[in-house]
């Protein structure tokens, strides 16, 4: 792909376009393509840069420690506290993709549908006191066509029909699964010995050429990196150029929105943003869609205070920013006799969903999926990859690095997080970002059942490692979450304007021409791989918004 920004339609600030979309990521990219294809004029304001494949690098230090593709804490500090009673301290509290293409540019590309139960679990199992555990206003059946659309329009590799726990699907995956790695072989053998049902991991990575794009070269740099081959099916090589090709969509990078404007009738009129030079602009629009992720979407609403909405835009429920869910991850490692060379190829090739719903007889709510993978790059491995019983410096440590970098794998559990009202995104009282706006304050403490679920998955992971014949195995400790990379639930979807922020069309209950569509719309957390659901929601929202616009109901 050429590094030159493709020619595209340019709109004037004073042209009231049909839609301004805030965020060119997982959902914003989809909405931009769908709405521009449906004939609407669209401007997408993206706070991050417009990088191309030639800008990507395998430099671990620059990607992971210098935020090449993500929010940079030096420009956009975050603060963290466990409960609303605590004083928040300045430190990295969450990460998100900050560029055209968004989080899926650097994601691991695990691409799981939610199951039927994820949408109706509270109704089926009962609500949980002290939580906001609730059913979605839509069901799996409502979203199924859009899961299929996401898989086929973006390009997903996998094998349908092999997991007995898979939800019904109208079409198989468009591409066969990726070749199995040693971690997948060992996991498959170990899990089957224990009577479980491992199956090929569905991933948004091309196992074969697809729609003019090259297949994966197995270089091994997925999580945290942009794909130089364009084989990772993020919006960057798919939705974005397709939106541009309509001639009706302009992607405007380095555009940091600070406020959504309202008129005297309480309708959104556009978005005020800082451009690259720091100059403030107002892009006018007939409707505004915020797709800025589960942390920036509520933050922008909270920043958009007005006389009509003194507590933040579209916040009559008081729930904007509340019910943040991170998912938890459990982690266990194993060392093996022969080289696995897990640093090659994609991260995950086998997963299992046998504990998608943990039996309530264990005494807690929860569930999740388990995968096998290599979790690190060289520097990270030297920090975190060896069992704690081994020396952490000196000649013996060096020998361990030498021996085990190629001979280790990890079993990772991805689990539910219950929605808790105290867990939230809010505006910090004192800390400001580089543009002078209040910094994002994160309040988060896992529900006890989330930690029990995490421990349960860890125990199962250790049993699987035992069954693989690992020479040595160890579990990383269960800890309360203090850092989020899945940002979910902060403007939840629902029928009742008192208990939710958007309706099932993603329209805010308070402002008729303001829509929110990203991880913030989630009602429950799912089992740790939210991207496909974020994108399926965006495909569905595009259809809903198109229908409303055509009926003159926006």
């Amino acid at each position: 792909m050429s590094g030159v920004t493709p020619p595209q339609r340019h709109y004037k600030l004073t042209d009231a376009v049909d839609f301004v979309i805030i965020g060119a990521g997982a959902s914003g990219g989809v909405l931009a393509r769908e709405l521009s294809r449906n004939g609407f004029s669209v401007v997408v304001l993206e706070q991050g840069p417009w990088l191309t494949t030639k800008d990507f690098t395998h430099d671990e230090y620059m990607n992971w420690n210098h935020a090449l593709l993500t929010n940079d804490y030096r420009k956009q500090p975050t603060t963290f506290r466990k409960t609303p009673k605590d004083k928040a301290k300045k430190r990295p509290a969450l990460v998100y993709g900050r560029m055209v293409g968004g989080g899926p540019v650097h994601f691991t590309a695990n691409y799981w549908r939610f199951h039927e139960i994820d949408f109706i679990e509270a109704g089926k199992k009962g609500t949980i006191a002290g939580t906001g555990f609730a059913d979605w206003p839509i069901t799996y059946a409502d979203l199924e066509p859009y899961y299929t659309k996401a898989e086929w329009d973006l390009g997903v590799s996998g094998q349908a029909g092999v997991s007995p726990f898979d939800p019904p699907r109208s079409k198989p995956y468009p591409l066969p699964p990726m070749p199995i790695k040693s971690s997948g072989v060992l996991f498959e053998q170990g899990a089957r010995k224990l009577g479980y049902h491992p199956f090929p991991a569905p991933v948004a990575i091309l196992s074969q050429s697809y729609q003019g794009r090259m297949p994966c070269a197995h270089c091994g740099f997925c999580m945290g990196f942009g794909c130089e081959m364009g084989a990772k099916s993020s919006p960057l090589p798919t939705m974005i150029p397709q939106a541009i090709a309509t001639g009706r969509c302009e992607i405007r990078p380095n555009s940091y929105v600070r406020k959504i404007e309202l008129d005297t009738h309480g309708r959104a009129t556009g978005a005020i943003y800082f451009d690259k030079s720091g100059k403030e602009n107002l892009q006018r629009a007939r409707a505004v869609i915020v797709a800025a992720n589960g942390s920036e979407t509520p933050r922008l609403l909270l920043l958009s205070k007005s006389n009509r909405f003194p507590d933040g835009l579209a916040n009559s429920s008081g729930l904007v920013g509340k019910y943040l869910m991170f998912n938890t991850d459990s982690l266990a490692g194993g060392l093996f006799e022969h080289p696995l060379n897990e640093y090659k190829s994609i991260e995950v090739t086998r997963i299992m969903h046998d504990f998608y719903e943990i039996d309530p007889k264990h005494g807690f709510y929860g569930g999740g999926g388990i995968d096998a993978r290599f979790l690190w790059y060289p520097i990270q491995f030297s920090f975190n990859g060896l069992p704690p019983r081994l020396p952490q410096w000196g000649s013996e440590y060096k020998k361990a690095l030498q021996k085990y970098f190629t001979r280790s794998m990890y079993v990772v559990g991805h689990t539910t997080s219950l929605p808790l009202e105290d867990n939230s995104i809010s505006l910090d009282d004192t800390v400001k970002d580089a543009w002078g706006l209040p910094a994002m304050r994160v309040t988060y403490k896992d529900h006890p059942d989330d930690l029990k679920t995490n421990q349960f998955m860890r125990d199962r992971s250790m049993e699987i490692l035992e069954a693989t014949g690992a020479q040595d195995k160890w579990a990383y400790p269960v800890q309360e979450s203090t850092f989020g990379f899945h940002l979910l639930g902060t403007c939840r979807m629902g029928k009742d304007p008192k208990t939710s922020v958007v309706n099932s069309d993603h329209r805010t209950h308070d402002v008729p021409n303001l829509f929110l569509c990203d991880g913030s719309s989630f009602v429950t957390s799912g089992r740790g791989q939210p991207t496909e659901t974020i994108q399926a929601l965006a495909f569905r929202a595009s259809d809903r918004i198109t229908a409303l616009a055509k009926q003159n109901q926006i």
Partner: protein
Amino acid sequence: MDTDQTRRMFLGQAGASLGLLWLGSLTPDLLAQAHAYAQAAGQSATKTYRFFTPQQAADFDAFSAQILPTDETPGAREANVVHFTDYVLSTIDRDQQADMRDAFKSLQEQVAKTVPGATSFAAITPAQQIEVMKAIEAMQDAGAFGLLRGFTLTGFLCDPALGGNKDKVGWKLIGFQDDFYYKPPFGYYDAHYDEGKS
């Protein structure tokens, strides 16, 4: 997830004053210049430092050589860890300078405690150095040890374009190749995979 630990080690103390300085500073063009500088610095025969004092450089050299000693295989010294660290601290990691100065101060204080009268970490015997390192590693706030160890490991295993991992000695040691293209099988177990039997 646990990469949080890595991030915190390097970013947790990021200074408030940097603010606007960082806006737009990490463009690919600037990165390319930084890499070129690092390579030139790494190849330079004369050891001049932009952040370290000569004493700090000597102490960090001795410290990093205990973390990753030169034995039958190359260690921190062969990877050019000191030059890498000096480079990043004087360019892209200026926000870590204060913490690094504090770390050297903690190290020096422990040297004075463990070996009364000693002038520097570099000047004491290897056995004494190990004693000092174990002491600061065991401190309640092990930030000094973590930071010095962290920069050592990073300089050993980073992209050589940043000036460390010279001649890829770190990557060669652990068996990491940096090719852009591989074909299956990747490892022993997938090479011996028999789907029907597993």
